[in-house]
C-alpha cells in the first residue's frame, strides 16, 4: 500500500497532467474555429467548410474527454484533499462554482448547437454558438487560474478558528481574486494553448504537404492541408515570440513573489550575485541529473543571465538561494530540468515560426522538406512544453499547497487510508492509459478519414452535416 499522502499527490498529478491536454486543445482550437466558421458563413468557400467541420470533430472529441476528466478534478479536492478544501473553501470554492455556472454551462450547451446544429439553426445563431463555445473555454481558464493563482500568491484573507478548525476567511475579494499572478498565468497559458494547437496543426498539415509535394504521393484535398499549414503558421508566428516575451516578464514576477520557486528553477543553492543563466546544461553524472546544482553543472551560460532575468535588467542582482529557506525544498531536479526544456522549446518554436514565415515569403513553403520534417517532429511539443510549464508551477511551489500557508501534506484527507488511495490511483493509471489510447485512436481515424468532400458539402442536398468520420471516410 502506498502512503495516502503520496498516493493522493500522485493521483492529483496524474489526473491533472492528463486533463490539461484537452483544455489546451479546446482553448487553442477555439479562435481557429471561430475564424473558420466566420469565413465559411461569409465566403461560402468549400475549403472553409472543410476546415470548420474537420477541426470541429477533433474539438468535439477533445471536449468530451476534457469534460469527463475535468469532473474528476473538481471532486478530488473533496475526496483526497479534504483538509485543504475545508481550510481554503471559503475563498477557493467560489471561483470553482462560478466557473461551472459562467463558463462550463456556456460551452457545454452551445457545443451541442455547434456540433450537431448546422442544419437546424440559422447562420447568425450558428456563429453565436461558435463564439459562445470559444468564449466558454477561455472563461473556464479565467476562473481556474484565479483559483490557482491565489494558491501561488495568497492575498486578501485571514486565518480564523471555526468549529475547532483553522479556516481561511476572505476579507478582500479584490486582493484575492484580482491577483497579479493571475494576469501572467492567464496570458502565458492562453497564448501557449494557441501556440500548441498551431504547432499541432502545422505538423499534421506539413505531413500531407510533404507527402504530396516532396514525396510525390498525391494526397486528396491537398488544398485543404495547404491552407491549414498557412493558417497554422500565422498562428505560430504571432504566438511564439509573444510566449517568450511574456514568459520573461512572468519569470521576474515569480522571482519577486516566490523566490524559493525561482531558486529551484535555476538550481541556485547559495545566495549569490551575478548568477549565470544556463541556456544549455548537461548533466555530467547521474547525481547531476537528479540533484542539479547550478554551480557544479556543465553548461553554457550567459554570465549574469539569471540575475538579469530576476531583476529585470541588472546582471549583478542577488538571487536568494534555496539554503535561505527553512524546511523541505521543492524537488529541484524536476523543476530545474522542466524549466530548462520548456524555455529551450519556446525558443525553438520562435525559430520554427521565422523559418516557416521566411519560406512562405519566398514562395518555397511547400518545397522545403527539412522544414516539413521539423514541423512534423514538433507537432506534439507545444503541449509537451505546456506540461513542463505546469510542472515548474506546481512542483516548484512544493512543499506548499498554499504558498507559505499550508503544506500539501497537511491538505490531504485525514481519514483516507492507504488502501483506498492506492486502489483509486491504480484505477486511474489504468483507466487514463486506456483513455489516452482511445483518444489517440479516434483522432487518428478522424485524420485518416480527412476533411468532408464532394456531395457531402453544403450546397449539395445533405441532411447530415456532422457525421462521424467513418461515415464520411472512404475506408468503411
Amino acid at each position, binding site marked *: 500500500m502506498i502512503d495516502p499522502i503520496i498516493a493522493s499527490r500522485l493521483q492529483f498529478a496524474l489526473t491533472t497532467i492528463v486533463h490539461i491536454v484537452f483544455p489546451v486543445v479546446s482553448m487553442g482550437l477555439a479562435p481557429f474555429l471561430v475564424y473558420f466558421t466566420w469565413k465559411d458563413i461569409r465566403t461560402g468557400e468549400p475549403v472553409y467548410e472543410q476546415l470548420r467541420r474537420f477541426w470541429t470533430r477533433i474539438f468535439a*472529441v477533445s*471536449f*468530451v*474527454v476534457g*469534460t*469527463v476528466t475535468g*469532473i*474528476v478534478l*473538481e*471532486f478530488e479536492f*473533496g*475526496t483526497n484533499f*479534504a483538509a485543504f*478544501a*475545508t481550510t481554503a*473553501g*471559503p*475563498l477557493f*470554492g*467560489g471561483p*470553482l*462554482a*462560478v466557473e*461551472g*455556472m*459562467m463558463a462550463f*454551462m*456556456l460551452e*457545454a*450547451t*452551445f*457545443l*451541442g*448547437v455547434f*456540433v*450537431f*446544429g448546422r*442544419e*437546424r*439553426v440559422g447562420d447568425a*445563431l450558428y456563429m453565436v454558438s461558435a463564439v*459562445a463555445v470559444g468564449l466558454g473555454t477561455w472563461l473556464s481558464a479565467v476562473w481556474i487560474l484565479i483559483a490557482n493563482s491565489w494558491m501561488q500568491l495568497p492575498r486578501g484573507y485571514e486565518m480564523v478558528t471555526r468549529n475547532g*478548525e483553522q479556516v481561511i476567511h*476572505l*476579507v478582500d475579494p*479584490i486582493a484575492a481574486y484580482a491577483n497579479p499572478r493571475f494576469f501572467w498565468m492567464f496570458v502565458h497559458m492562453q497564448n501557449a494553448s494557441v501556440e500548441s494547437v498551431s504547432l499541432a496543426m502545422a505538423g499534421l498539415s506539413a505531413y500531407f504537404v510533404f507527402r504530396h509535394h516532396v514525396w510525390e504521393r498525391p494526397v486528396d484535398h491537398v488544398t485543404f492541408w495547404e491552407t491549414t499549414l498557412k493558417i497554422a503558421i500565422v498562428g505560430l508566428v504571432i504566438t511564439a515570440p509573444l510566449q517568450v516575451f511574456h514568459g520573461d516578464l512572468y519569470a521576474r514576477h515569480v522571482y519577486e513573489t516566490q523566490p524559493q520557486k525561482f531558486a529551484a528553477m535555476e538550481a541556485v543553492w547559495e545566495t549569490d550575485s551575478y548568477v549565470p543563466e544556463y541556456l544549455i546544461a548537461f548533466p555530467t553524472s547521474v547525481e547531476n541529473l537528479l540533484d542539479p546544482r547550478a554551480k557544479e553543472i556543465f553548461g553554457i551560460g550567459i554570465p549574469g543571465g539569471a540575475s538579469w532575468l530576476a531583476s529585470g535588467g541588472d546582471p549583478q542582482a542577488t538571487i536568494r538561494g534555496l539554503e535561505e529557506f527553512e524546511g523541505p525544498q521543492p524537488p529541484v531536479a524536476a523543476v530545474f530540468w522542466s524549466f530548462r526544456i520548456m524555455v529551450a522549446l519556446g525558443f525553438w518554436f520562435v525559430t520554427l515560426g521565422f523559418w516557416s514565415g521566411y519560406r512562405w515569403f519566398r514562395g518555397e513553403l511547400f518545397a522545403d522538406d527539412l522544414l516539413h520534417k521539423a514541423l512534423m517532429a514538433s507537432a506534439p511539443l507545444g503541449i509537451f512544453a505546456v506540461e513542463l510549464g505546469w510542472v515548474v508551477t506546481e512542483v516548484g511551489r512544493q512543499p506548499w499547497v498554499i504558498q507559505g500557508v499550508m503544506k500539501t501534506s497537511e491538505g490531504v*484527507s485525514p481519514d*483516507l487510508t492507504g488502501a*483506498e488511495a492506492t486502489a*483509486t490511483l491504480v*484505477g486511474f493509471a489504468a*483507466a487514463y492509459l486506456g*483513455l489516452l489510447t482511445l483518444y489517440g485512436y*479516434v483522432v487518428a481515424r478522424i485524420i485518416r478519414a480527412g476533411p468532408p468532400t464532394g456531395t457531402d458539402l453544403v450546397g449539395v442536398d445533405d*441532411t*447530415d452535416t456532422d*457525421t*462521424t*468520420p467513418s461515415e464520411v471516410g472512404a475506408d*468503411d
Partner: protein
Amino acid sequence: MTSVETLSNGPLFGLPLADLWFGLLFFIFGTFLFLDGFDFGVGVLFATRDDKDEREQLLAAIGPFWDGNEVWLVVFGGALFAAFPSVYANLFSRHYLLMFAILGALILRGLAPEMYEQRHDDRWQRWWGRAFVVGSLAAPFFLGMFTANWLLGATTLVTLPGVLVGLTVVALTVVDGVAFLRLKTRGDLRNDLQSDGYRALAAYLVLVVLTLVGVYALAPGLRSTMRSTLVLGLVLSTLVLAAGYVLATRADRYYVAFAAAAGLVFALVGVVARLLYPSIDPAVGLTVAAAIVPTLSLNLMSIGAALLLPLVFVYFVVLYSAFSGPIEAGESY
C-alpha cells in the same frame, strides 16, 4: 472598501442566505437528476433495443444534450464546495470509493457513445453498447447510494437504504428517459417504449414505498419529519404525478408526461432535502447554519448565482429549442 464592509456585515438584504443556498443546492441536484436522468434512462433502454437503427436513434436523441446536462453535476459540486466547504470535504472524503465509482461510471457513459460511433463493425459496437449501458446504469445507482448514505449519515460503503435508493433512482431515470424519448422518436420505437415506461414507473413506486418503510424503520430520528405535512404532501404528489404520467402518455400528450417525470424527480429530491434539513451532514452532526461559508464569500456567491443562473436558463432554452421535436432522418450522434 465601503462596499466590501457592507458585504461583510450581514447577509444581503437580510435574506436567509444559508437556507436559500441549501435549497438552491438541491434545486441544482434535482435539475441534474432530471436532465441527465433522461440520458441515463436512454442508456438503460439502449439495452432493450437490438435494432441498429433504433440504437442509433437513441444516441442521436441525447447527442446534443448530455454534455450540458452533466454540467449540472459540476455546478452542484462547485456550489457545495463554495457554500458549504466543510460538507463538501467531509462528505466526499468519507464516501471516497463511492465518489470514484460515480466518476468512473460517468466517464464510461460519456465516452461510450463517442466510441460506439467510431466504427461500424458488430463486435466493436456490441462492446461499446454494453459499456454505455453499464455506465448509464451504474451512475444513477451509485448517485442514489451516495444520497442515501449522506442523508442517513452512513459511514460504510454499502447500506440497505443505499441499495434501495440506488435502485429507486435507476427506475426513475428510466421513467424520465421514456418520457424524453417519446418526444424525440417516431413510429414503432415510440410505441414500444410506452410499456417500458409503465414498468419502470411501477418499479419506481414500489421502490419508493420500500425505501420509505426502510428509512422509517432504520432511522428513528427522521420519523417525525417523515410525518410532516411537506413530506406527506410530496409523497402524495408523487402518486398524483405518476397517475398524470400514465394518463398523459395514453393521450399522447408527450410534453405533459415529460413535465410529470420532472415533477417526480423534484418530489424525490424535495423529500431528501426536507429530511436532511436543518442538518446538512448528519454523520458529523453539522447543520446548515454552522456549515455555511462566512458572510462576505456568501454574499459574493449569491450575487454571482443571481446573475449567472438566469443566463444558464437562457442557454438551455436556446439548446432545447434548436433541437426540439423528433430527430430527423439522417441525424446521428
